[in-house]
């Protein structure tokens, strides 16, 4: 509350001397802060936090799903079953060489005896002698996932040269993983759309709610001769400040959550907790794209609030003018 700037001074010889009139710095036309404005800022901060968190989480899940799909479809395996008449080492080398003659293959690696034994160690224990058991041997072929070889022709060529060979192109796994990855990404996108829709609706209605308490200001400005654009700009500036503060707080908090989670994961590499989290969610790093998305979300919220304020003010003025052309709609006007 302001106090009068003028203070009476003692009378001197019957005359009263007064100091110069001073006025306080001009206050903004729209009150800078009130309960509804603060509540709107909180709503915007919460919705910005949730939207940014969802955006970051969905981009993380999509990246993880894409990496699953990419890693498993980058390799194929040739499995050769042992046979009495088969020279296993020669067959492995022949199978690898044959595979590498096909366009779309990049590299071939024979899983040697020691590596095969290590693969079976969890089931058969240490000190396994592969000669005692009819254990199949593997050749891992790396392929160009964008331009894969002709699997049917490769399979045909292998079965002609080495009947014991079996080509596993991981298609079953890849198809399942692709389906799972796509489903996961789709669910994530659905959640993102829902959260963004909720954010848009909440911000729009909260802004309109905060504005409804200021209708009398719009009316007075309109009646003292302010143009609609002037009134809208005054409210727009006010709500831009509120929304920038709110969305910055929410977005920054979400970015901080990702930064802390990434830092924790980096610090606890190779620990059971971190491995579990990485296996489930991938790395917590959202990358530059994620942070850009968070910044874009903040800007979208600020623009949304500002535009809602502008449209609501213009609509209020339109309604006031509509009362003019339709006297039956006298709500908001003093009684006659």
């Amino acid at each position, binding site marked *: 509350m302001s106090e009068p700037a003028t203070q009476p001074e003692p009378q001197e010889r019957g005359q009263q001397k007064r100091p110069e009139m001073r006025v306080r710095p001009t206050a903004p036309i729209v009150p800078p802060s009130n309960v509804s404005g603060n509540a709107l800022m909180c709503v915007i901060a919460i919705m910005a936090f949730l939207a940014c968190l969802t955006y970051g989480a969905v981009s993380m899940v999509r990246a993880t799903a894409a990496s699953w799909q990419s890693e498993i479809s980058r390799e194929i395996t040739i499995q050769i079953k042992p046979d009495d008449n088969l020279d296993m080492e020669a067959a492995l080398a022949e199978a690898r060489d044959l595979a590498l003659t096909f366009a779309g293959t990049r590299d071939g690696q024979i899983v040697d005896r020691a590596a095969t034994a290590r693969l079976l160690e969890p089931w058969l224990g240490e000190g396994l002698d592969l000669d005692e058991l009819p254990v199949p041997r593997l050749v891992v072929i790396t392929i160009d996932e964008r331009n894969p070889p002709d699997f049917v022709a490769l399979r045909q060529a292998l079965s002609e040269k080495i009947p014991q060979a079996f080509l596993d192109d991981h298609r079953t796994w890849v198809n399942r993983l692709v389906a799972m990855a796509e489903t996961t990404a789709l669910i994530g996108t659905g959640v993102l759309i829902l959260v963004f829709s909720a954010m848009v609706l909440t911000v729009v209605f909260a802004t309109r709610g905060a504005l409804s308490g200021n209708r009398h200001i719009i009316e007075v400005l309109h*009646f003292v*001769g302010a143009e609609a654009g002037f009134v809208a700009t005054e409210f727009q500036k006010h709500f831009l400040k509120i929304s920038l503060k709110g969305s910055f707080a929410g977005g920054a908090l979400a970015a901080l959550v990702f930064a802390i989670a990434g830092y924790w994961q980096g610090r606890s590499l190779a620990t059971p907790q971190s491995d579990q989290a990485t296996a489930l969610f991938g790395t917590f790093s959202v990358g530059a794209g994620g942070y850009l998305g968070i910044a874009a979300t903040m800007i979208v919220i600020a623009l949304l609030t500002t535009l809602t304020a502008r449209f609501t003010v213009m609509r209020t003025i339109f309604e006031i003018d509509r009362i003019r052309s339709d*006297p039956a709609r006298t709500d908001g006007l003093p009684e006659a």
Partner: protein
Amino acid sequence: MIHFENVGLRYGMGPEVLRDLTFDIPRRSFQFLTGPSGAGKSTLLRLLFLSLQPTRGLIRTFDRNIATIPREELPMLRRRIGIVFQDFRLLEHLTTYENVALPLRVRGKDELSYRADVIDLLKWVGLGERINVLPPVLSGGEKQRAAIARALIDRPELLLADEPTGNVDPPMARRLLSLFLELNRLGTAVVIATHDLSLMDQVDARRMILSQGRLDIYE
């Protein structure tokens, strides 16, 4: 300046609140608008202020037919009219000074160009000591005077005042009346809606008496 011809107005499907009003408000004229409560004084003021359109008849304001004025041009016409609302309509977060300066501020004027004028006018209406006070602290009479000062600050061509002396004591009512007369002498047409017979008796001015929606004019 203002011309009404066979103007009638009804709210929705109700009866006509104003009927067959035909009159002029000449430039530099001074008139009282009076009549019993509910006679339609405030409605007539709203018609004069362009915040209502009649359901029939013709109104010309500043030589423009108000039925054909685009809404974008209304603010420019309203700037030529000052209005004192019965309920004051002061913005509670602005000081007396800021409320009175509001019409100039929305016209984009620089504060330095009008500060002295606003303070002078506030002193004239007896609010020189209250320039930095917010409306909730002001008395009814002080709010009334602030609302009058806001309507006068940009020297309107037409001043409409709805019960401008309703909340002030007789000496202040006389002072406000002399302010209106001074404004009128400087060229502003004045319409004062009032019930106050003693106020009307102080000035030999035109009287527009509204009764049951009809208007009688005594020159």
